[in-house]
């Protein structure tokens, strides 16, 4: 039984005097307790919008959310604002990309952590402070007592991200969404944060949605990976299979275009041509068609459907044929 | 809002009257003052040996009941009123009177500055130290009731000049106690003694109570020991509101009971609103000054005549000045001694003006025309509009104007006196009804703002004005002045007399008995309210 069921989620941005724009266009996936699900894709493919839609954090005006998001049988999309507030922070936690701008610069870290505890666990400030200290300690912040009274700008990047994680985990949510939690950080710090997330998820059976554009991060962390393109999931698989045999030309292209530390040097990279700007709408086509090396005529006439084979889901008319690699 | 005093419910006597004044008094010792704002207070608080008859500019007895002079006009005996007390309770007597004369005469240091003791210097000349000749020689106590004042020569002004507020009688005790003569020039300012700032002590119907500088309110109270008819009001307040419109609004909103110098344009409206608008007799003159110094063409009488004929003074007076204003035929109003009723009026005729200009070879005359900003004067309520009207008339006869404006204190007066302008707007409000105070001041020195020195008659005119002034015989003096007046307008025309504008004051309906004075020397003691 999945903890979170996302079905056919769509988000349409409608701005005054502009064409409606579907940032997310029928995304479905499940997350089971203790499982880590990855959402990968290039910038602008709808990863963040998906996560915000799940959290109910999209702007009320201008964004139309469709489909269904079920959290343990509760339809989140139909909850009232107040009910959703009760859920957020308690059942659903979220960690954002830029730890500096995601922390309120004028409020001490301690208050920012305790306000969740006060809100959802009804703790008095004093007790909450004790708890907050433990939390900071748990996420590996040295000298947590002192940090409670400090302001975000006084922390280093890694510490800020840890504080943000502590906040998201304060009420032991069952689902944690991490939206590119390490993109703004250095590799050595990224490794620390990823290790921390991994440990936390394992320890607490928390379900984790990991959003990133870095396939490497996904490869090390996720159980299941969703590859997004132009607001739709184009391929999904368990991570070993997906990385071993990417079927969608986009996934394949991504893997081929990034230099790998472990690959022998001297091989030329194979880039995907064009850029996201070349996308065409999904309505009667495959959005990736203009950039796709495998594109067929049908690709610009018929929208490919999501087809499943075994543990794999794929949205492609002409998947990559796996040549047997050494 | 000001009727908080319960004692004033409809009663004829008592109550507080608040009168809107236009300027702040510089100080309260009138001897050191020249400003109308100070004098307005002085006139209620002080009295002089000589006074002016209510509603006129004619001198009459006040603290002196009568006076006699020797035939050469050099020795004057004043008989003093008895039973007069100063506000501090001391007696006014012959000693006190001479004390005042001697105080004036014995000024030291900054007190000798013509800007500090201006009226003394103007009328009496020098001081006891003899640096400059003085008209005053001595004052001796003849007996308890009489004093003798000796002069060094005769003067048309004496003894009327003693009616000026500056020469009011002040309490010797108070003056000594509060160091009245201790005027110091320090840095770029003067420091006046406590007497002048806070302790003026006279014999008048009201005594000084307080000056609230923050609220610009001068409070006077009835002097119960007054020797004559006691003041009807309990309190008399002068509220200083510099802005004319603000004064009007203060009256309309009931903050004050009356105010001085309503804008002529408001008279009609104020009347229909049920206020009394009381015009005074005109005691001023506005003229269009002509400086002969820089522009040689202006030295030509025909050109000056043409300028005077180009101006439609009738219309100017009718359209821009108060209702009772009149066109000036000469440089002083009717009530001044020496006024000549037979001066030939200047004709308005643009054609003749043009012809005259052509004749003088000045058809394309170009002049600098100055008018002052940041000022209104009783004789010149709105300089800009008056300038506008005159400028239009002058342009009409083909005179080209370069217009210059300066703030009144921002160079206008200074530079006019330095003879920098060709044509300029200016005027005069008289102190007394001696012609010397009028044309004497204007033309008595050939290096004046008109630079009459440039004309052949300039020096001569100055000399004859002096001679008239020291003529002891009143009738003859008057004759001399009349002739001078005629000549100035008909033959010299150093400037163009424009108008006499009577300044007015406004009162609420229920304020009675404030008699207008041409010298703006209204007495508030008989005034009642309600």
């Amino acid at each position, binding site marked *: 039984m999945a903890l979170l069921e996302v079905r056919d989620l769509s988000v349409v941005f409608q701005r005054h005097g502009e064409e409606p724009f579907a940032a997310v266009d029928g995304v479905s996936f499940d997350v089971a307790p203790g499982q880590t699900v990855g959402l990968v894709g290039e910038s602008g493919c709808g990863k963040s919008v998906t996560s915000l839609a799940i959290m109910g954090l999209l702007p009320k005006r201008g964004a139309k959310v469709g489909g269904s998001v079920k959290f343990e049988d509760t339809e989140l999309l139909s909850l009232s604002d107040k009910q959703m507030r009760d859920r957020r922070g308690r059942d659903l936690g979220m960690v954002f990309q830029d730890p500096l701008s995601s922390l309120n610069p004028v409020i*001490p870290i301690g208050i920012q952590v305790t306000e969740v505890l006060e809100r959802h666990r009804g703790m008095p400030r004093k007790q909450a402070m004790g708890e907050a200290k433990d939390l900071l300690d748990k996420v590996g912040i040295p000298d947590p007592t002192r940090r409670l009274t400090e302001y975000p700008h006084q922390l280093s990047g890694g510490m800020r991200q840890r504080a943000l994680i502590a906040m998201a985990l304060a009420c032991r949510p069952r689902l944690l969404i991490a939206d590119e939690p390490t993109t703004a950080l250095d590799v050595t710090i990224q490794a620390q944060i990823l290790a921390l997330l991994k440990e936390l998820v394992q320890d607490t059976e928390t379900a984790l949605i990991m959003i990133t554009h870095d396939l490497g991060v996904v490869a090390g962390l996720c159980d299941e990976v969703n590859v997004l393109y132009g607001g739709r999931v184009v391929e999904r698989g368990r991570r070993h299979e997906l990385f071993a045999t990417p079927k969608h030309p986009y996934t394949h292209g991504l893997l081929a275009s990034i230099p790998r530390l472990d690959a022998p040097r001297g091989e030329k990279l194979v880039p995907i041509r064009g850029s996201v700007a070349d996308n065409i709408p999904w309505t009667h086509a495959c959005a990736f068609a203009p950039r796709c090396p495998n594109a067929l005529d049908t690709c610009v006439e018929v929208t490919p459907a999501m087809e499943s084979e075994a543990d794999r889901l794929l949205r492609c008319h002409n998947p990559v044929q796996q040549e047997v690699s050494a | 809002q000001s009727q908080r005093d319960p004692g004033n419910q409809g009663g004829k006597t008592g109550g507080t009257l608040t009168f809107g004044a236009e300027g702040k008094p510089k100080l309260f010792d009138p001897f050191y003052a020249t400003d109308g704002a100070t004098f307005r207070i002085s006139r209620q608080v002080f009295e002089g040996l000589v006074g002016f008859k209510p509603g006129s500019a004619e001198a009459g007895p006040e603290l002196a009941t009568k006076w006699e002079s020797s035939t050469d006009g050099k020795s004057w005996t004043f008989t003093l009123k008895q039973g007069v007390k100063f506000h501090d309770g001391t007696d006014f007597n012959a000693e006190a009177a001479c004390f005042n004369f001697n105080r004036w005469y014995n000024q030291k240091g900054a007190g000798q500055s013509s800007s500090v003791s201006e009226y003394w210097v103007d009328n009496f000349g020098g001081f006891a130290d003899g640096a400059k000749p003085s008209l005053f020689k001595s004052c001796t106590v003849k007996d308890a009731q009489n004093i003798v004042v000796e002069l060094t020569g005769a003067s048309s002004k004496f003894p009327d000049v003693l009616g000026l507020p500056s020469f009011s009688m002040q309490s010797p005790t108070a003056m000594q106690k509060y160091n009245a003569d201790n005027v110091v020039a320090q840095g770029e300012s003067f420091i006046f003694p406590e007497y002048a700032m806070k302790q003026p002590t006279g014999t008048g119907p009201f005594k000084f109570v307080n000056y609230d500088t923050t609220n610009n309110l001068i409070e006077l109270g009835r002097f119960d020991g007054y020797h004559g008819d006691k003041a009807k009001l309990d309190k008399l307040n002068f509220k200083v509101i510099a802005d004319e419109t603000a004064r009007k609004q203060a009256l309309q909103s009931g903050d004050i009971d009356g105010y001085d110098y309503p804008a002529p344009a408001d008279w009609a409206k104020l009347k229909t609103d049920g206020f009394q608008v009381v015009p005074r007799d005109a005691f001023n003159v506005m003229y269009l000054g002509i400086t002969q110094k820089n522009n040689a063409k202006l030295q030509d009488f025909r050109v000056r005549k043409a300028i005077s004929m180009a101006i439609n003074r009738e219309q100017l007076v009718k359209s821009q000045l108060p209702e009772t204003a009149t066109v000036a035929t000469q440089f002083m109003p009717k009530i001044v001694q020496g006024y000549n009723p037979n001066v030939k009026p200047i004709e308005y005729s643009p054609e003749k003006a043009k012809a005259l200009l052509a004749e003088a070879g000045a058809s394309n005359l170009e002049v600098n025309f100055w008018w002052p900003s940041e000022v209104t004067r009783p004789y010149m309520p709105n300089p800009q509009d008056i300038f506008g009207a005159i400028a239009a008339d002058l342009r009409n006869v083909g005179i080209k104007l370069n217009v210059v404006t300066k703030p009144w204190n921002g160079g206008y007066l200074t530079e006019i006196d330095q003879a920098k302008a060709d044509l300029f707007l200016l005027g005069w409000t008289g102190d007394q009804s001696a012609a010397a105070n009028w044309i004497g001041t204007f033309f008595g020195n050939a290096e004046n703002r008109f630079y009459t020195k440039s004309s052949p008659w300039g020096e001569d005119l100055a000399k004859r004005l002096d001679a008239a002034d020291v003529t002891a015989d009143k009738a003859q003096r008057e004759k001399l002045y009349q002739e001078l007046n005629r000549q100035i307008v008909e033959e010299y025309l150093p400037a163009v007399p424009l108008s006499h504008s009577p300044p007015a004051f406004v009162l609420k309906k229920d304020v009675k008995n404030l008699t207008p004075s041409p010298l703006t020397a209204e007495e508030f003691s008989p005034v009642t309210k309600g």
Partner: protein
Amino acid sequence: MLRYTVRRLLQLVLVVGVLSLLLFAWLRSLPGGPVSALLGERGTEESRRELTALLGLDQPIYVQYFKFLGRALSGDFGTSLGVQPGTTAVDLFLERFPATLELSFCAIVLAIAAGIPLGYLAARRRGRWFDNAGVIGSLIGVAVPVFFLAFVLKHIFAVELQWLPSAGRQDDISATRVTGFYVFDGIITGEWDAVWNSLEHLILPSIALATIPFAVIFRITRAAVLDVLDEDYVRTAESKGLTAQVVRRRHVLRNAMLPVVTTIGLQTGALLAGAVLTEKVFSFPGLGEALALGFERRDYPVLQVLIIVAAMVYVFVNLLVDLSYALIDPRVRTR
């Protein structure tokens, strides 16, 4: 922080020093002068010259300046010549300053009381008619010359309707003076009618004076709230499920207030120094009126003191704003 404060104070001294010198020279190079103001049309060339010499105004400017400095150091900044003859410039300042302070305070309170809530509401209702009306209204507020607005207000409410007094700070009620702040005096002496009377006198001028600060505060608040609403940390706060109230108060308003506080400070500084026209129209006996009159009468001592002090106040208020900013913004505080 301390070092910063000291540094700014020293800068202030520098500015004031330079300003006083410039001002001194400049005032004296203006045409006309106190002499002509003192003598009026009665003056002659000769009497002017004499008075000029008596007042020492014929000496070279640097000599005058050093004499002035010498006297200033002993606490003598001169005595008013035309504004309030006989009063020392410092006394005049001390007397006028409370009035201006009272007025500016009322104006800024009005501007804040209207500007912040309306700005906040406009931001929340972005793009709707309320927002648009607010924005255009605030622009009109900036475009109407203050003196004209003052005039219209006075005309309508004081003259036509007679609801409020037209001039001054207080009617001639015998109120007790303690501090020079009339409203405050009334409160501490319990003279409530004096309090009310002073307030009545303050209403119109402060409305006139409040329009520009109001417009500015409104716009800044609106812009700041819009900015903050887009900030990541507001999203974080929402993601923590905090109640709408807490989000609004603790996260949105508190951050949006940072630029607003600066603005308020700067506006206050400008008001303190710049209420000239309004005070003139309402004959309100404050610094501005004294300044205007000082100019008219060329009252050097008063102008010197008032302008320098006004500049000092302005710069000082800016410093205070900077420092108070540090109190609310920890990023600055811990420097």
